């Protein structure tokens, strides 16, 4: 297994090295004269070493070089030990080539030596389009290319061993994302593409040509114009294919081959929805352009109009009087009078999307206790290996509730539960907290043998913590890169399926997890601990 994996890795590395030469060659996709390096690092003050957070080598047509790197902003202090910084430096192509070779040997030498992950995985070239209906997220960490798309060759840090400990520090990831986003002259956003942290990318902007795509007046024909780089003296041997699509079907297609230096060609398609244009350099087997565009045919605008001095709605609230300005909602548009076939299809697509997303929602009525419990149990049973713990947060939580839900997890994940002593003591008929603890232990013993259970239950008691009302089931991921999964139960576990409620997945789970952990910190002490198994 290991040998096969290694062999694949070596083969990819070989491809990548060939790709590097191919992309750098003058006239293939550009005429590069230099390279701009943007280097984001985390500095360890104790070890006095810089760790690579992300480095981008972006080739361009400027020949200037810098002797020393420039800092793009003031450093960000993470804690007493670490700080984050961003540097930029222009280097020659030769220097960039040397860097490429050295990184394969595990050496990243930007200004001073910088630590990278061991055994970075070198991937062959990848084409990153920039104009697309669903823009490739990679564009959010690449340098914008004025002329179009990019190729990249990436060193992927799979293990991220150097960074995991740092990034697991509370809120550090968000702090660093924010710091980078706000730094002028580097428009990178890692918040949605965080798996690239630790990587090194060589970016090859495609500047050899510029393409313009225009819809003819009849909306059935498409005109394509292509102009080459001033240094390109002869046309390339290219293949252009344009397709139109709608509702996952290809509604039109046409292609054109040319070696001309200037192209101005009309494609007779018959449709212009979701036009995907691909231009391929046949000689070098390189994409020169790929885009998906849509032409605006209808505009519908909704607006609210407020009238000067119109009488507001007056409210008497707990904090005093309030005025609500009233508006008149109106909508208008261009070409929206007639509903055509595309409107019908689009409506169905939208409806299906809504239905698809609602699988993370359960609606339960009275006398559906088993169904509601099963909904929860299924999610617990099917939990993936990306998760290491399950938290249950319910002010009325009792042992039977934990057993009816969490105990269905069978791989030994950690269970952490929070309940409220005042709200549950009556049910257990406990006179005092020590009596309460005893009764809880007896309940667990009588209802289960607790085999393989790793559970800690704490209660809000004795002035610790704060009041809470909502009930959540939280799946905690193994690392900070994975998003937690959180379900809002709508009702206490002991009431699930006994009256109308919904269980739904929460769209912003990190916030809930953070709040649970804050409260847990307050209650995780000998005063509040109810039971800890084993």
């Amino acid at each position, binding site marked *: 297994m290991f040998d096969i994996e290694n062999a694949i890795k070596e083969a990819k590395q070989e491809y990548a090295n060939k790709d590097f030469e191919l992309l750098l060659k003058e006239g293939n996709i550009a005429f590069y004269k230099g390279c701009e390096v943007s280097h984001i690092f985390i500095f360890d003050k104790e070890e006095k070493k810089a760790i690579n957070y992300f480095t981008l080598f972006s080739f361009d047509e*400027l020949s200037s070089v810098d002797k020393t790197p420039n800092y793009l902003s003031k450093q960000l202090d993470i804690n007493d030990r670490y700080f984050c910084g961003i540097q930029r430096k222009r280097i020659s192509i030769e220097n960039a080539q040397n860097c490429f070779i050295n990184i394969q040997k595990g050496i990243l030498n930007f200004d001073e030596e910088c630590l990278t992950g061991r055994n970075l995985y070198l991937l062959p070239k990848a084409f990153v389009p920039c104009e697309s209906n669903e823009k490739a997220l990679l564009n959010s960490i690449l340098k*914008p290319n004025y002329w179009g798309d990019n190729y990249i060759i990436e060193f992927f840090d799979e293990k991220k061993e150097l960074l995991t400990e740092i990034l697991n520090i509370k809120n550090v990831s968000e702090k660093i994302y924010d710091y980078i986003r706000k730094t002028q002259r580097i428009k990178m956003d890692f918040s949605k593409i965080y798996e690239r942290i630790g990587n090194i990318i060589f970016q090859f902007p495609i500047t050899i040509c*510029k393409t313009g795509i225009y819809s003819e007046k009849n909306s059935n024909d498409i005109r394509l114009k292509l102009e080459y780089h001033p240094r390109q003296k002869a046309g390339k041997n290219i293949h252009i294919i344009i397709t139109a699509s709608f509702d996952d079907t290809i509604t039109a297609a046409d292609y054109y081959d040319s070696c001309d230096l200037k192209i101005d060609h009309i494609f007779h398609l018959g449709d212009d929805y979701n036009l995907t244009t691909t231009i391929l350099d046949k000689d070098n087997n390189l994409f020169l352009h790929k885009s998906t565009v849509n032409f605006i045919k209808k505009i519908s605008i909704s607006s609210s109009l407020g009238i000067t001095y119109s009488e507001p709605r007056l409210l008497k609230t707990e904090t005093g009087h309030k005025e609500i300005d009233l508006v008149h909602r109106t909508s208008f548009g261009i070409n929206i009078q007639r509903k055509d076939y595309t409107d019908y299809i689009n409506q169905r697509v939208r409806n299906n999307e809504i239905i698809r997303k609602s699988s993370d929602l359960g609606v339960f009525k009275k006398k559906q206790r088993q169904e509601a419990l099963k909904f929860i149990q299924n999610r617990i049973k099917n939990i993936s290996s990306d998760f290491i713990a399950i938290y249950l947060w319910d002010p009325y939580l009792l042992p039977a509730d934990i057993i009816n839900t969490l105990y269905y997890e069978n791989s030994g994940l950690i269970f952490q539960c929070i309940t409220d002593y005042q709200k549950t003591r009556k049910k257990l008929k406990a006179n005092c907290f020590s009596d309460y603890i005893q009764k809880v232990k007896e309940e667990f013993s009588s209802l289960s043998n607790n085999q393989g259970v790793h559970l800690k239950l704490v209660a809000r008691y004795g002035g610790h913590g704060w009041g809470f009302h909502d009930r959540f089931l939280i799946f905690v991921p193994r690392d900070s890169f994975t998003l937690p999964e959180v379900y809002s139960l709508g009702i206490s576990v002991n009431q699930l399926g006994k009256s109308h409620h919904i269980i739904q997945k929460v769209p912003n789970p990190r916030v809930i997890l953070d709040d649970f952990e804050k409260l847990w910190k307050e209650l995780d002490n000998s005063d509040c601990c109810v039971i800890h198994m084993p």
Partner: protein
Amino acid sequence: MKIEYLLNDIKNGNESAELFEAFKQILENPTKEINIDFFKQINAIIFNYTKINKNEFLQINLPEEKIKKIKECLILSRKLYTESVNELSEKKLIISLLLLRFYEQSFLLLSDIKVSKNFLDKIIEMLKNVSITFNIKDDARYGEKKWLDAINEAKTLNDYSKMLKMMDELNNSPFLFEGIESSWTIIFQWIWFIRHEIIIELITTMSPETVEVVFYSLKDEIHNIVIHLPQNNPQKAYPVLRGFMLLFHCLEEKTRGENAITLQELPDCTDWIIEMFHNKIINIPEYIPAMRIAHLKSFNYYLGKAIAKDISLFNKFLSAIDLDAEVSVVFSESFLDNVNQNRKILFVGNKIIYKYFSEKINTYDFTNKNIGCLGIIIQYFYLKYKTKEKYIKKLNKTSSMIIKIQSSWDFTNIKKFWIYLFYLAMANNYLEYHFTEKQLKEIIPIVFDERERINQGYYCIDTIIALLTSFVEKIKLKKINNDVVEFSKKSDKNE
């Protein structure tokens, strides 16, 4: 067409005894106050006597009987007028004037009757005590009540900006000055007829509402009122500001409609306007937004003239010039037509270029030659790049900036530099420097990057090249705005 009577027609003759009897009752009641009811009552009596309404009155062929009645009323008007002057009777004066107004006759019918100083003093005293207030009915709409609260608050705080804005809103109301036509307006108009200075003196002491009525009464004389108002008392600034605002609106009216006059035919009050612009006590620039005159052609016309004459005003008013708006073409033309020193064009042009290219203006568009101050910008370039070397250097620098931005992380400003290059090329219509394509490839290589034809459009690229080379016979433009530059077939590829 209304009937106009001449003085000789009514100098002698019998007045209407019946009408006189009707007025006697009111005149003999010492407790009858001069208020809106008084006016209403008089007008009602006149109407009931003649039984003639406005529409009827405007007919050409009135029956003889009615014409006779009207003459008798006018003779009565003269009689009452004479008596009022002799007896110092305000009520008789008012009735006399109302009779004249009812039949839409000129004050000239009374011009031969001398008015004594004592009488004038008495009338002035009456007007000083006139209190005109806005009234809102109890069941008025919420918006109207809110408006009244707002204007009262503005008055209390002496917030002139707000007062100007609120009064302007009032002008759109259909109920404005309901009833005022046949009351105080006639008095103010008569005073103006007799002696202008009295109005000018009185207006500075009046409440904003009364000021509004005065200006309403003397719409056609606003210019003559405003230029004589004292401008050195901040406490009495309101009539000056309101008058200044109304003046421009009145001037603007003259340039519209069937009998429109051109801007050049408007009265020349540039010197007075310059004086007003300089006034440190009444700081006009502060009130321009509230006055809502920045969009008026008349304002831009005078502003252009004023700044051409006195360049020190420009910084104060730069924020009032909306560089996007077509109306500022008027400013540009007015300034250029009146300016007589190159250094002024350079000064103004420099500031305008800085403002235009540093603000986010949505009219960055090669095909739009109607941006407000394009004329000034082109003239500026013409004066600034008097030598070919300087011009080449600037072209080259602009081209280099575009190339630099293409390799940067942010392309936001690229269109701005293309527009700048485009305008520089337009200036060559005046500069008339000749370049070959080969030379241009060295100076502005960016224009010969064929890829940019896709980005910027073929029109832009072809136009720049055509303006700088001798492909076409150059067409001299006196004014760039609203003129179309014609080129050879190469630039016919419009995108």
